[in-house]
């Protein structure tokens, strides 16, 4: 449930809105729920609103751990 995807914030606009770029397509979304978002950030877009943000380091780390021998370190009870 809850279709949402990471898209790159490429332009801040008036009225707490921003332009995001997703694989070449651009769409204006509301960033009222992630007021801290800046150009270059990846926000998570759901029904026309950014509802969260991607942490690039964590993404990197998750990818690196996929299928590794041992359990992922330091994820217990959420970061």
């Amino acid at each position, binding site marked *: *449930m809850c*279709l949402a995807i990471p898209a790159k914030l490429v332009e801040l606009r008036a009225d707490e809105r921003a332009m995001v770029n*997703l*694989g*070449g*397509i*651009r*769409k204006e979304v509301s960033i009222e729920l992630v007021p801290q978002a800046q150009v270059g950030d990846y926000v998570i*877009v759901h029904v026309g609103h950014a509802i969260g943000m991607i942490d690039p380091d964590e993404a990197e780390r998750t990818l690196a751990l996929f299928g590794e021998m041992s359990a992922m370190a330091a994820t217990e009870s959420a970061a």
Partner: protein
Amino acid sequence: MNARDDSKGGTVRAGYVRPLDIRNGRIDMGHGAGGRAASQLIEEIFLAAFDNPFLRQGNDGASLAIPQGARLVMATDAHVISPLFFPGGDIGALSVHGTVNDVAMMGATPLWLSASFILEEGFPLADLKRIVQSMAAAAREAGVAVVTGDTKVVEQGKGDGVFISTTGVGVVPHGIDVSGAHARPGDVILLSGTVGDHGVAVLSQRESLEFETTIVSDTAALNGLVADMLAACPAIRTLRDPTRGGVATTLNEIARQSGVGMLLDEAAIPVKPEVDAACELLGLDPLYVANEGKLLAIVPADQADAVLAAMRAHPHGADAACIGSVTEDPHHFVQMNTRFGGRRVVDWLSGEQLPRIC
């Protein structure tokens, strides 16, 4: 008045008609009533654009030389798209391509089109002219003539600007026998290019969905491509353009019609990154998104390379790919090995494909 007196007045130019005001004019009910206003509309907009000896005959039908060949093909499509003008095309060009392609998918050389217009009262004449000119250009490019037509006007609120139904007639060369019923297990499935471009280009214009994309509709006449393919392999089993319902639904149709199954390779199906992205955003699957300038071909496995080479040599087939093969399956399932490594059914489209939130 007394007749004799009046005859002394100004000269009556019986044939004179004040030209249509294309810039500001709009369709009103009179343009569909069959009188002089209707006749003027046809003359100044339709005949001006489609100009050809068939239409100039001025009859309610066209008189055509009986063509040489094995069989005739007749196909029809109604076009009701909104918006009427979209990135990469408009309803005019689309209405030519849609029917030319259906004729071509029968292995035929399209020759003639009829066009029937249902105009909504209030439709701007300028838009109509633009659409008709685009149709005429598309017909010229496809090498077909719009040989007869009809125009009706419906009241405002009982139409949507303009609907165009076209019917095409073409001729199948001797030795060609293409049908959706001819797919056989072991055959190879070819696709002429990237999927979903048309649907995404149109969606990008939908009110409240609007997004910016460089994707434009792929709308195009494919009769030239088909001619090259048939020259390379007259034994092509099946040709079909994956329009409404997309590649997924079209392959299911063929599977049912031929009584076979199919197995696709997801990784082999060409999709433009932006189309992929738009589908992610809206919760759609590119396999179900409409195309208007692509074709699926089912060919005997031993001739797949030759056909693929012919496709890639044609501008409308530059991205052609082999995307799977025909299987034996009493359920007529279309299945797909996913890029991820799994396997799944690729079902018919059910209902409308609506943007999703979850």
